[in-house]
């Protein structure tokens, strides 16, 4: 399921070529195809898809070309070698013509492979079934420069990608590693496979690592420092023709037979991409065996391309999806820079190469111009780079070579050793970073080195972009990275390694990214309930070889012994797959049958179960004769200082804090919450103190503030609230805040005045006289409460008789805005808890005490608004009382008296009245009491239908 399929971006077919070998040149623009009858050169061009072969040369030979190869060094980029039978012909592409410069004849049997030296274009290695591997100097091609001798015929020869003097050859199931400077005997002799090795590839990042693919169906990673056993093995059930490293991160590309899960004929054309031992992606397109695949040289790190040639006579070009690059721990340069920059970035790769390369036939003027445009910021010279690190501590500069633009560095920290080679690119483009690779002696495991490279590359890109020299910063990054690797004792590391290995060896393809299913969990729900589910106690885990702890990914479920194998056409090898719908991309989904899922991992301890309740097994359902899974709910009320009973019994009466505190103290004492009772009693005292200000208006201002500043009043209350909030007792904190909700912040009074004078939106219904919906509806709820306003000033104007106690200035403690906000938040959270307890009325009481500041940005009012036309002066009033004539604006249409309390209006005709009167009226009539003829009930109803309460 997570195995993705992808197909090529370009495809060219050349049926007549009958080519058996293919190679891409150094520039990445020219492809050589070689067959028995023809040699052909084709240009790769994404824009121009003419599919034309540029040059075709007849080649009359009895033998197939067993190998074709372009030299991959800059100086030698015009050289190519064609191997055919016992001979290797070296051609040079000169003036758009292919000229055979020399023929290498020393092998006595068919040549199986050739490989140019990676740096010195005059050196080429050839190997043959005649057991010899010859290394030639092309300047003197009469006889090989030296010959490496083995017992068995050689099938592959590969120069190391980091250290230029090392070469590997494959002989049946064995690998020999040579240093060509001392050719007497191989450096290492590795018995790698039981069957013939088809492919060898050196790691692009490590001097000491390579991968082999063999006819026995396995792919093995080796470390030449520890050649006795492979670092890692991937088992497949089919012969593997080639396995090559991805130039980015830790991936591996393979050609094998039978990986597509397709009919046999088509299987051969599938290229598999493995990441961390798992087949993660398949490149599908070729209909017959893929013969050669090479990475197109000089592509940008954002856009790696693969060129393949298969027996179906098609040449295909593939790009690697970004997700894959990321999965391989490849660092991608950030793309969020400005676009121009990026274009020049990708262009610079192609153009720097092509402009110095007269191979390209078309006029490259356009590209040259672009090249000139490339910003030449302050270029950092190589010497500066090298000088910068000379004084750096903790590193040893092993070797500096300005000629080859490389240096070698040794870094030792925390018993970890990293030997790295840094190779600076030839071109001075600011976007190309140096290439870092690990040399022998490094003792950091390869997965970590890949991550380390990622980190280094990230630093390098950043510094390059900024125009700085990057080497110093890269080394610093590296040093810190290594410091962070946990130091493990060797034994530990060993067991870790083995467990990783066993896991990756057998992880089934699809589920490697999917976390291992949870079978135990605990969740807090509601206010104080803990929901727990876990495995039955007699479920034991299958003990897995080399493994401790629960595996991380779901693919481990296929580890159950005895069932592994039979290929991975289905996601889990042993899963019973059921036919199922296909998704958009067209590959069928396979679903795990329950009996093969997680349950198989935890088998039941049958013996125990059986001995205890014999005979009951069969009737026990499908989980291997055990109890059905259970969920247990735990009440953890005592862990929390929240009490539903208290919430119900507490009194909320913000107008009379003293009464509220005293009564709540009694309530708390009744319920046995003695601590709370004492706190309420204290609060009552504080409230009393605030209240006890002499009513005499003529006392000095000092005395006025006396109690407010007294440590036993406002500060005491505040510290009480803070204490309870810190102890997560939201209930007590919020209730205390409620009791003293007349706490004011500095700006509050001014805020209120702006509220009352500020005009709300322009859109009002013409005559609507509805009471203002409370702000509770702003929460998305239309609660059964409609109250006038939360602005005290308005309320005061209206009911000047009753508000004296409510709006006494003496109870004000001045609070800063932050505390005020915090207190509102407490109330909000407590309201939520009350909601969960379904104490809706208490919740509403609490919510009513939350004031909302509107002074900065008056919130956009959504929905209908209420405005009254004053009965006396015809002014538009947005409150209860008319600001002009100071009288109650709204007159009841039924009793013709001003409406103090709840009013009810018709949205159509605008006539309003006391809610009770209107209700009474409309029980008997359906027309308006004003006699305007409006059928209020019917018409208003239909009008409200379209209104949305958000």
């Amino acid at each position, binding site marked *: *399921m*997570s195995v*993705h399929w992808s197909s090529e971006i370009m495809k060219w077919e050349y049926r007549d070529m009958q080519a058996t070998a293919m190679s891409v040149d150094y520039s990445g623009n020219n492809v050589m195809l070689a067959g028995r009858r023809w040699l052909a050169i084709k240009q790769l061009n994404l824009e121009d898809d003419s599919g034309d072969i540029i040059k075709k040369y007849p080649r009359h030979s009895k033998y197939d070309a067993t190998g074709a190869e372009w030299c991959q060094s800059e100086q030698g980029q015009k050289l190519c070698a064609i191997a055919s039978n016992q001979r290797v012909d070296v051609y040079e592409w000169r003036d758009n013509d292919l000229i055979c410069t020399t023929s290498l004849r020393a092998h006595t049997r068919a040549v199986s492979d050739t490989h140019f030296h990676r740096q010195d274009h005059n050196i080429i290695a050839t190997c043959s079934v005649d057991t010899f591997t010859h290394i030639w100097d092309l300047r003197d091609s009469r006889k090989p420069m030296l010959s490496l001798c083995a017992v068995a015929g050689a099938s592959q020869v590969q120069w190391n990608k980091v250290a230029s003097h090392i070469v590997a050859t494959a002989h049946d199931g064995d690998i020999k590693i040579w240093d060509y400077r001392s050719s007497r005997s191989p450096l290492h002799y590795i018995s790698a496979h039981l069957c013939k090795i088809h492919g060898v590839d050196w790691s692009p990042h490590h001097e000491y690592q390579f991968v082999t693919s063999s006819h026995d169906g396995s792919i093995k990673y080796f470390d030449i420092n520890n050649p006795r056993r492979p670092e890692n093995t991937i088992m497949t059930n089919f012969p593997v023709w080639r396995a090559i490293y991805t130039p980015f991160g830790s991936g591996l590309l393979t050609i094998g037979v039978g990986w597509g899960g397709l009919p046999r004929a088509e299987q051969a054309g599938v290229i598999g991409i493995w990441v961390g031992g798992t087949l993660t992606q398949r490149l599908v397109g070729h209909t017959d065996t893929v013969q050669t695949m090479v990475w197109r040289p000089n592509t940008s790190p954002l856009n790696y391309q693969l060129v393949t040639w298969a027996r179906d006579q098609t040449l295909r070009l593939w790009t690697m999806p970004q*997700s894959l690059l990321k999965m391989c721990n490849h660092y991608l340069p950030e793309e969020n820079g400005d676009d121009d920059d990026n274009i020049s970035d990708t262009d610079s790769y192609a153009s720097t190469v092509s402009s110095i390369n007269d191979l390209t036939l078309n006029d490259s003027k356009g590209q040259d111009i672009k090249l000139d445009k490339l910003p030449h910021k302050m270029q950092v010279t190589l010497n500066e780079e090298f000088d910068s690190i000379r004084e750096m501590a903790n590193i040893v500069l092993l070797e500096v070579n300005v000629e080859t633009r490389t240096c070698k560095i040794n870094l030792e920290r925390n018993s970890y050793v990293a030997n790295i080679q840094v190779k600076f690119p030839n071109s001075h483009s600011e976007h190309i970073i140096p290439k870092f690779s690990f040399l022998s002696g490094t003792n950091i495991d390869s997965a970590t080195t890949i991550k380390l490279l990622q980190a280094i590359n990230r630093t390098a890109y950043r510094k390059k972009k900024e125009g700085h020299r990057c080497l110093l910063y890269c080394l610093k990054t590296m040093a810190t990275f290594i410091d962070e690797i946990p130091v493990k004792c060797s034994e530990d590391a060993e067991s870790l390694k083995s467990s990783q290995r066993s896991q990756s060896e057998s992880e089934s393809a699809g589920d490697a*990214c*999917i*976390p*291992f299913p*949870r*079978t*135990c*969990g*605990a*969740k*807090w*729900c*509601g206010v104080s309930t*803990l*929901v727990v*589910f*876990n495995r*039955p*106690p007699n479920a034991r885990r299958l003990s897995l070889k080399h493994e401790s*702890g*629960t595996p991380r990914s*779901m693919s481990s479920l296929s580890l159950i012994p005895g069932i592994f194998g039979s290929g991975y056409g289905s996601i889990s090898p042993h899963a019973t797959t059921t036919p199922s719908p296909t998704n958009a991309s067209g590959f069928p989904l396979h*679903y*795990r049958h*329950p009996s093969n*899922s997680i*349950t198989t991992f935890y088998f039941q301890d049958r013996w125990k179960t059986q001995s205890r309740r014999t005979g009951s097994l069969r009737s026990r359902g*499908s989980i291997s004769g055990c*109890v*059905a*899974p*259970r*969920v*247990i*709910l*735990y*009440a*953890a009320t005592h*862990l*929390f200082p929240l009490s539903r009973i208290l919430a119900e019994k507490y009194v909320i009466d913000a107008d009379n804090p003293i009464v509220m505190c005293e009564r709540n103290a009694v309530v708390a004492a009744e319920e046995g919450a003695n601590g709370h009772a004492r706190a309420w009693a204290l609060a009552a005292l504080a409230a009393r103190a605030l209240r006890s200000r002499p009513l005499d208006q003529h006392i000095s201002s000092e005395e006025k503030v006396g109690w407010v500043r007294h440590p036993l009043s406002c500060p005491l209350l505040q510290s009480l609230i803070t204490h309870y909030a810190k102890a*997560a007792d*939201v209930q007590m904190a919020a209730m205390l805040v409620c009791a003293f909700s007349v706490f004011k912040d500095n700006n509050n009074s001014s805020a209120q005045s702006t509220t009352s004078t500020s005009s709300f939106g322009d859109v009002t219904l013409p005559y609507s006289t509805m009471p203002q919906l409370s702000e509770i509806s*702003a929460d*998305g709820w239309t609660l059964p409460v409609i109250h006038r306003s939360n602005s005290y000033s308005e309320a005061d104007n209206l009911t000047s008789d009753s508000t004296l106690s409510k709006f006494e200035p003496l109870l004000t403690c001045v609070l800063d*805005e932050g505390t005020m*906000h915090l207190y*509102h*938040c*407490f*109330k*909000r*959270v407590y309201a939520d808890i009350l909601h*969960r307890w379904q104490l809706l009325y208490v919740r509403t009481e609490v*919510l009513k005490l939350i004031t*909302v500041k509107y002074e900065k940005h008056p919130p956009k009012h959504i929905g209908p608004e209420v405005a009254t036309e004053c009965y006396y002066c015809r002014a538009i009033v947005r409150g209860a009382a008319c600001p002009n004539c100071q009288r109650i604006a709204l007159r009841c249409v039924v009793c013709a008296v001003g409406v103090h309390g709840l009013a009810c209006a018709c949205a159509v005709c605008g006539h309003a009245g006391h809610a009770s009167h209107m209700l009474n009226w409309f029980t008997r009539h359906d027309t308006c009491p004003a006699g305007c003829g409006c059928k209020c009930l019917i018409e208003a109803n239909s009008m409200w239908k379209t209104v949305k309460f*958000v």
Partner: protein
Amino acid sequence: MITVLNTIDTGHEDMIHDAELDYYGLRLATCSSDNSVKIYDIKSGTQTLVVDLKGHFGPVWQVAWAHPKFGNLLASCSYDRKVIIWKETVEWSKLYEYTGHESSVNSVAWAPAEYGLMLACCSSDGAISILTYNQDGGNWETKKIPGAHAIGCNSISWCPAISADLNLDPLSNREAPKRLVSGGCDNLIKIWREQGDQWVEENRLEMHMDWVRDVAWAPSLGLQRSMIASCSQDKRVVIWTSDDNVSWNPTLLQTFDDVVWSVSWSLTGNILAVSGGDNKVSLWREGSDGQWVCISEVAKGLGQTPSEERAL
């Protein structure tokens, strides 16, 4: 301190992967490898199966109840790469099915109700999706963060809407900045913030050495400090605290014996429940000195009858 309230025999044919009570604590939803989601009415020690929801074609990993102001809504996510939102009208039925992921969907989480009806889900394809219900159009809008975590994203959690920001209306919190925290197979925890109509990575927290299995943003009382708990395959639980949601400080809670699968905060944000591969559940509370203390270990196993259960 903890007493058994109820034991529910779920009748699932395979292991359970998640269970959650609704907002009021009256209904229990469970999901299992048998591809089904079940809902039970819980009342004083009894249970009644309300419905057995079948619609997934693979193990169902997680369920989540929405705030009741949107109606009775349940979201579930599964190995079959789908997220299904179920709604109770007269009967339970599928309200919406989201199929925008290319691999197993591992986690679903409803946004704080203040933001409206909004769901985040994350998948092994590495992406996070945010689904928003558009009331006017009556449709679901999708925003996707592709490649949020390399290899895969395992868990997601919302930042509470209640915020210490003074400019916010404490009642609605509608304007509070929306934040998400996610944990993935790249061993990272990432914090995402909505900016305009995009989600941008605000922060990444590095501490774990293996896959992050679960992340949970603690509920807020409105205090300055926010907390995130994370647990990982590396057997560790880490508490991240921040005073400004920008710089985060890790505190190692504990290294456990086995991998840790889930972390869950209590409503008051002061008690953390931790569970993992060793089949154990433990509760943790922060002491006054800032040290985290294990206050109890719950549920050795479900085989015991409630009376055998140790009173904790």
